[in-house]
């Protein structure tokens, strides 16, 4: 590290960038709902996509999960957790929605 302050500036810049991106995505998500201009399903899809993007922004800029080697353990852990969560949540929804449909 040649300039000790350089690291700090980079770190601050990272947080500011993350904050700005997250703000933009949040506002966009609320705006599509506040001023509806698409049908229900499309709006929902947009909201979920924006939410997913924002989660990635948070992981990248606030939690510093990157593709760098040092973050690899954590990245694998998170990806594995996502796999398990997707299995559990989608499984629960499919099973119980199916039951509801068959009972109604």
């Amino acid at each position, binding site marked *: *590290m040649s300039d*000790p*302050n350089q*690291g*700090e500036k980079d*770190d*601050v810049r990272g*947080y*500011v960038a*993350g*904050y700005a991106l*997250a*703000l933009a995505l*949040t506002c966009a*998500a*609320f705006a599509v*709902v*506040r001023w*509806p201009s698409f049908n*229900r399903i499309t*709006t*929902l899809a947009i*909201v*979920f996509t*924006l*939410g997913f993007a*924002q*989660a990635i922004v*948070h*992981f990248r800029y*606030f*939690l*510093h*999960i*990157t593709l*760098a080697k*040092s*973050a690899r*353990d*954590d*990245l694998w*852990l*998170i990806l594995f*957790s996502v796999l*398990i*969560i997707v299995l*559990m*949540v989608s499984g*629960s*929804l499919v099973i*119980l*929605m199916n039951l*509801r449909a068959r009972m109604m």
Partner: protein
Amino acid sequence: MSAAEAKHAGINLGDSDRETHEKAGSEIFGFWIFLMSDAVIFALLFATYGVMLRGTAGGPSAADEYRILPAFIETLILLTSSFTFGMASVAMKHGRGLRTVLAWMVITLALGLGFLAMELRDFSTMIADGALPSRNGNLSSFFALVPLHGLHVAAGCLWLAVMLVQVPCFGLDKRVKINLLRLGLFWHFLDIVWIAIFSVVYLQGLIR
């Protein structure tokens, strides 16, 4: 291994504090695992919320009570608190002195408490309108999911308060630093859970 090499994701202490940096590897990884385990709890509450969306038993649904403005303001408060906590971490990493670190922490705590106050007001309005968790399954699932996040934020605030005592008490020693790193992860993680809450719960409910 050179100390500058990053040990874990997130703010690394490699440049500024060699010894703590070496120790932090397993402590931080352990905390990540805890967070992922906690994420499963939230995920299942989301699944339950989805399953019980129609379980209103003729009564009011949680979605009838959602209002977009408070939800939006709460979101902004929590997002900003994530940013201010990030500033506290940066200040700690680069040895900006206790005062700067403490100032950012106090701001974060104030935002956290503000969020909780707004959320409590939302809940009390709902209850005053007769939308009680004991009214139907749909409301039960709402009142398990969203207040659990609130409880986590409250725990985070308590943790912050304890750290506000420990930072002046011990200075930025090894344990304080590691604890602040972990609290940072916790705080940012709660913000991510909140993204899911405002998308899946509030905005989905508000789409007409």
